[in-house]
């Protein structure tokens, strides 16, 4: 197999001492239990593909794609090995070698056709303000919610400018379609031709930070955290737990900001057993919802049950994908747990 992308990571693969510290919190390893399911195993497989000691197979592709890119392994790695970059390269090489998933192709085709992951013509809530705002596919599809979230910004003194945006290309990147990603990135830049903008989606934000080095987006929660203390807010008098999205807590290091906001709006926070940078993944990342939906749902179910065990009836989070994945499972499990975006709570408190 040609390893066009993996070969760039040979030194990083050598830096991994294979100490196995990455087993400790890996949600996939905990769920499936074989070493090839954990980060070390996946890196060893990547090395095998690179060295030619392993022939590529559907089985290996499944292992490499069965990862939610939660970065827990990187958080625990003593050598700071860039696991996600290596696995992204391995995915790209496997795709080039013909290991493609119908579900992935279907998803990517939707983006190519319509510019969003839903494959539907969605009319964005265009606003002609001063500060460009990127909603991201998931919030674009939730137009009413988006309009309310934009109201938060207005309330905080920001005049949002919403354009006819297109997908940032994240699914192409994480699913290994590097050439298609380049094309989508060009489209994205044309539609949102700004260096600085507010990003409403956690996943888009993290992807843009990593894949558009010249852009300087600001995550919505940073903006709110800075401005909210200057406003009088209602105290919601609510008891809730908060799920740290992987891309926010581990990816961007934002653990305190959401908690400070919850405190300010009068939400009593009951922490999940794992939280902050140690928070367990809901299974919604890395394309896992598309690659292995039942596995993603199992991880989500574990998180929902952890919340229910706390005796709370509300779980709030920020990432729209976490919100979707956890909310979906919570609903199917009888709806005892309400999953709500933290922005909805902020809206309630200030609008």
């Amino acid at each position, binding site marked *: 197999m040609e390893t066009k992308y993996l070969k760039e990571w*040979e*030194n990083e693969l*050598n*830096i991994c*001492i*294979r*100490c*196995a*510290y990455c*087993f*400790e919190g890996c949600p996939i390893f905990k769920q499936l*239990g*074989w*070493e*090839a399911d954990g980060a070390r*195993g996946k890196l*060893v*497989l990547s*090395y*095998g593909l*690179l*060295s030619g*000691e*392993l*022939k590529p*197979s559907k*089985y*290996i592709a499944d*292992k490499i794609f069965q990862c939610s890119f939660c970065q827990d392994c990187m958080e*625990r*790695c*003593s*050598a*700071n090995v860039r696991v996600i970059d290596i696995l992204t390269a391995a995915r790209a090489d496997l795709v080039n070698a013909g290991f493609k998933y119908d579900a992935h192709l279907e998803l990517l085709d939707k983006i190519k056709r319509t510019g969003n992951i839903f494959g539907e013509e969605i009319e964005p809530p265009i606003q002609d303000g001063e500060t460009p705002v990127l909603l991201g596919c998931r919030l674009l599809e939730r137009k009413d919610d988006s309009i309310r979230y934009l109201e938060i910004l207005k309330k905080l003194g920001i005049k949002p400018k919403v354009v006819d945006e297109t997908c940032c290309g994240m699914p192409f990147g994480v699913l290994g379609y590097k050439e298609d990603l380049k094309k989508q990135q060009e489209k994205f830049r044309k539609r949102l031709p700004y260096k600085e903008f507010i990003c409403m989606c956690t996943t888009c934000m993290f992807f843009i930070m990593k894949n558009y080095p010249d852009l300087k987006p600001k995550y919505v929660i940073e903006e709110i955290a800075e401005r909210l203390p200057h406003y009088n807010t209602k105290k919601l008098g609510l008891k809730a737990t908060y799920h740290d999205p992987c891309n926010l807590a581990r990816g961007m290091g934002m653990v305190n900001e959401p908690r400070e906001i919850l405190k300010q709006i009068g939400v009593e926070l009951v922490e999940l057993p794992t939280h902050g940078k140690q928070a367990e993944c809901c299974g919604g990342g890395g394309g896992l919802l598309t690659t292995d939906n039942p596995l993603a749902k199992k991880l989500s179910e574990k998180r929902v049950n952890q919340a229910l065990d706390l005796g709370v009836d509300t779980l709030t989070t920020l990432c729209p994908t976490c919100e979707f994945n956890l909310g979906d499972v919570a609903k199917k499990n009888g709806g005892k747990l309400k999953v709500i975006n933290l922005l909805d709570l902020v809206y309630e408190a200030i609008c």
Partner: protein
Amino acid sequence: MRDIETEKLKSIVGEKNVQDDPADLYVYGSDASVHESPASVVVKPKTIEEIQQIMCYANDELIPVIPRGSASSTSGHTVPIDGGIVMDLKLMNRILEIRPEDIYCKVEPGVIDDDLNRALKPHGFFWPPAPASSRIATIGGEIGANASGMRSVKYGATRDSVLGMKVILANGDLITLGSNTRVATAGYPIERIIVGSEGTLGIVVEATLKIVPLPKLRCMGIAKFNKVEDAGKAVTDVISSGASPSMLELMDNIGITAVNKNLNLGLPDVAAIILFEADGMIKESVDYEMEKIKNICEKDKGFNIEMSYDAKERTRIYTGRKKLFASLSRYKEGIICTDLADDMAVPNSKIAETAHEIHKIAERNNVIMSVYGHCGSGVLHTKIMFDVTNKKKWDDASKAASELYDYVHSVGGTTSGEHGIALSKAPFWKKEKADSLNVMRSIKKALDPNNILNPHKLQDAPDNWLTATRLRYRVR
């Protein structure tokens, strides 16, 4: 070795607990060492009975069996050099009993060290070996390697805390060794031989572990030194003074630079530091130990000595120390940290000169070697750092390892103080233990006549570690 009947293994442990895809066999063919060699099949037993059946089958068919925990082993302990059945014991992870009144607990081999300590904490006890890998190290693996760590200076190694065990022999027999008591006199202490036998004599399926009351107080200090030899001398003097530190670590500038670069820890940029800790139930006794160690460090040219009871600060420093091994790979671009010549132990009086010699050997052989470790126990970690893709550099590393072990043996030291022998260190260890190898082989033969348990390790390992297996790196 005859062909392995995967179906037979599936009938024992269930279909979902057997893997034979080449990808899994490849993954289970490596650990944290430089070696790799694929397994033939991987099984995950859940019960003693299942293991007994597997062993009976393997013994009849002369199939190697390699027990495996988290495989953080550093010298190829869990690398199946001849293929065979890799027995992943991570599913056997129950804590069976915690008996504070008897000061022991009983566990299955797949229990993780940190999980055990979390379970012991509410009882006011802890399991003391504390290897740096405690977050993933299994008790079975710790027993196999006779592991130890930062607290060995006060609490000893795994062997010192194992009271007894249940072991399945190569023929499938289940035997009970040791006792539940703190002393036992009669007969051969076979349980003590099993500890450190690297899976070559039996599969430990239950262990009775001596637990220790948790100290109420821990105080940590850092002393800085302008010469690594001065730091080494201070370690020697602390130990020979009769002081009782619960940790006494040395770290040279290479180690300091690596952890600072990788973890942004802000450790002082000096030639060497000593990290020391005392623990106890009464502040006066802890203060006494700390003062005593501080005074010795000062006498040996230590300076800017800071001491703190602050748990957060202690955790920050521990983190740096625990992550040092991996951080070394970030020391310099293009230089990789390999687990070679990594854990020799020398007599207490030889710390300073060994530290000096390590740097000289590294320089002479154009490799980088850090000096750090649980020097209070006499353990010096090195690691050999070089460009692993360059064939010539492997010759340099091999020569450096050889010179280092010759030196260590010449001063009365031993090849491995903490991680074990397996493959990478076997040639040097066999040289050290030349006159007792046949006795060891007799013991192995008595317990495993068909040589199926983790074969070709320790005394039976190949004489050339470089060619013992494929190396895990692409060497050009």
